[in-house]
C-alpha cells in the first residue's frame, strides 16, 4: 500500500473525557485505503515540536474521506494537539504499519486505556460481528461504550473502582466470557501487562490472539530502528513496519 505525506484539513478536535480528545481530519487518500490497526504519524506545528507523533486510526469513513483519531494528552506533543482548530492543516504520514488480520468470524476485542481506540475501527469493519471487553479506571473515563454502540454486538465493561460495569481488570472478567461464548479469536490492544495477561489466557484456551504493540517512534517507516523488538524465535522486528500488529505468540 503506498504511503503518503499530505496536509489534511482538521474538521473537529473535541474533548471526549478528561484529557482525552477526538480529532477528525479530511484525508481521502488515507481514508480510502487504511485498514484497522494501521496508524498515522501526525506533524504538530506547535511549540517548535520536531518529530511526528504516532496515533492509531480510531475510525474512518471512506465515502466521506474522513479519518478519526482518539488521543490522550500525556506530554508536550499531545498537549499541543489539544489547541488544534478546525480548518487548520495537519500533515499526515500514512497509512503506516500493517493492521489486524480480519479473518475472525466471532472475535472478542479487548481494550484497555487508549488501546481501545484502534478497536473501534475493527468493530466498525466487523459490523456487529464482534463483542468488546473494555477496561478503564473509572466511569468518567468510559465514554467508549457510546462510541461502540453502533458497531459492536455485546459490550462488556470493567473499571478499576467499580463505578461502571464489573469492578476489576479485563483479565478478571475474561475467563467467564470465554466460558459463555465460543470466540474464534481475540484481538487485544492496551498496556503491555494487560496484553500479556490476555495472551496467556487465550493460549491456555487455544484461541488465536492478535496484539498491537506500542514503542517510541521517530520515522514510522522502518528506517531508524527506534522501535525494534524481539520475537520469540529470535528475530528482530520493527514495530512500525512489521507491526504494530503481531500474533501474541510471536512477540509476547
Amino acid at each position: 500500500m503506498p504511503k503518503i505525506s499530505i496536509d489534511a484539513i482538521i474538521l473537529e478536535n473535541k474533548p471526549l473525557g478528561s484529557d482525552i480528545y477526538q480529532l477528525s481530519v479530511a484525508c481521502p487518500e488515507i481514508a480510502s485505503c487504511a485498514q484497522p490497526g494501521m496508524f498515522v504519524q501526525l506533524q504538530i506545528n506547535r511549540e517548535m515540536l520536531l518529530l511526528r507523533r504516532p496515533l492509531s486510526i480510531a475510525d474512518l469513513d471512506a465515502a466521506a474521506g474522513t479519518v478519526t483519531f482518539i488521543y490522550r494528552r500525556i506530554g508536550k506533543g499531545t498537549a499541543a494537539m489539544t489547541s488544534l482548530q478546525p480548518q487548520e492543516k495537519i500533515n499526515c504520514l500514512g497509512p503506516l504499519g500493517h493492521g489486524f488480520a480480519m479473518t475472525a468470524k466471532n472475535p472478542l476485542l479487548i481494550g484497555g486505556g487508549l488501546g481501545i481506540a484502534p478497536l473501534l475501527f475493527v468493530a466498525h469493519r466487523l459490523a456487529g460481528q464482534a463483542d468488546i471487553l473494555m477496561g478503564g479506571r473509572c466511569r468518567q473515563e468510559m465514554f467508549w461504550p457510546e462510541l461502540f454502540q453502533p458497531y459492536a454486538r455485546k459490550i462488556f465493561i470493567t473499571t478499576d473502582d467499580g463505578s461502571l460495569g464489573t469492578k476489576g481488570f479485563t483479565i478478571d472478567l475474561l475467563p467467564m466470557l470465554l466460558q459463555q461464548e465460543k470466540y474464534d479469536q481475540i484481538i487485544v490492544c492496551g498496556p503491555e501487562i494487560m496484553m500479556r495477561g490476555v495472551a496467556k489466557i487465550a493460549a491456555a484456551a487455544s484461541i488465536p490472539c492478535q496484539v498491537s504493540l506500542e514503542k517510541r517512534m521517530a520515522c514510522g517507516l522502518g528506517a531508524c530502528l527506534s522501535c525494534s523488538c524481539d520475537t520469540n524465535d529470535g528475530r528482530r522486528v520493527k514495530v512500525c513496519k512489521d507491526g504494530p500488529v503481531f500474533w501474541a505468540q510471536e512477540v509476547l
Partner: protein
Amino acid sequence: MEQSALLRTELAGIKMQSPVWTASGTFGFGEEFTDFVDLHRLGAVVVKGTTLQPRRGNDGVRMTETPAGMLNCIGLENPGVDFFLNDILPRIQKYGSNIIVNISGSTVEEYGILAEKLDVPGVAGIELNVSCPNVKDGGIIFGTDPKAAAAVVTAAKKHTSLPVILKLSPNVTDIALMARAVEEAGADAISLINTLLGMAIDIHTWRPVLGNVTGGLSGPAVKPVALRLVWQTAQAVHIPIIGMGGIMNADDAIEFFLAGASAVSIGTANFVDPAITMKIIDGIADYLQLHHLNNIEELIGKMKL
C-alpha cells in the same frame, strides 16, 4: 540552466546526480523511502552502520525528542555485513543510486576485514564510523584519538579499492588535529558531524529517559556546532567534506556549502518529512539559478570573511 547540470558533481571519484546524500542510520537502506524519494536523484544513500557480526542494539527506550532535536541510542543494530551483501545489496542496487556503506569495527583489523568484504560492484564507497557514541566497542575510541583514527583509515585503504570516507565525531577538542591525521593516512574524504553526546532525565521517575542513559543528539539543535566544525575542518584539509548536522532545508544546506562542504547529508529531517531530500535538491538548484551560478562547485567554501 537544467537542474541536472547545476547539481551534477563528483566527490572522491564518485559521480553524483546531486550533492545531497542521506545520513547513515536515518534512511534505512533507502528502500523504505521509495514512496517519497527518487533515490537516483540523491548523490548517495549512506546505509545503516554495518558490523562484522549482527548486532541487536540497545535495550529500553532508544529515542526521545529534545528541544529542536532528538537523542538516540540505537546502538548499531544491524544484520551484519554478510547479510547485507547477500540479501540487502542485491535488492537495493536496482534503484540506481550510489550506495555508501557505513561501517563500525571494534578493532583496527575489523575495519580492514569489513572494507575488503564490501569491495564489490554495487558499493560506491565506504564510510568509516569511528564516532558512534552509543556502543562501547563502536569505534568511539578511534574517533577521539588522531593516531587511532589514522590507523583505521590505513587499514581500510589497504583492503579496498573503493573511496574511503572517515566520519568524524564532534565530541573532540581539536577537530583540525583529527582531520589532518586522517588526511595524511590517505582518507579520500571526511564526513561530519556524527551526533553530539547528550542525555535526558525523567523528573517523575528520576530515571534516565534513554535505555543507554546517554545518547546522540541530532537535528536543528546541533546545526551551528556542525557548521562551525565543517568550517574548521575545511580550513585544515584539502580532501572533500560531506557536511551534516541539523540540515532541515535548502538554506541550511547552502550554509554548509559556503562553509566548505562539497556535499551535504540529510539525517533527522527525513523523520520530519520523508520527501525532504527532494525539496532540498530543488531548493539548492533554485538558489544557484537565482545567483547566476553554473554549478554547485562555485559555491563550495565561498564564505567571505
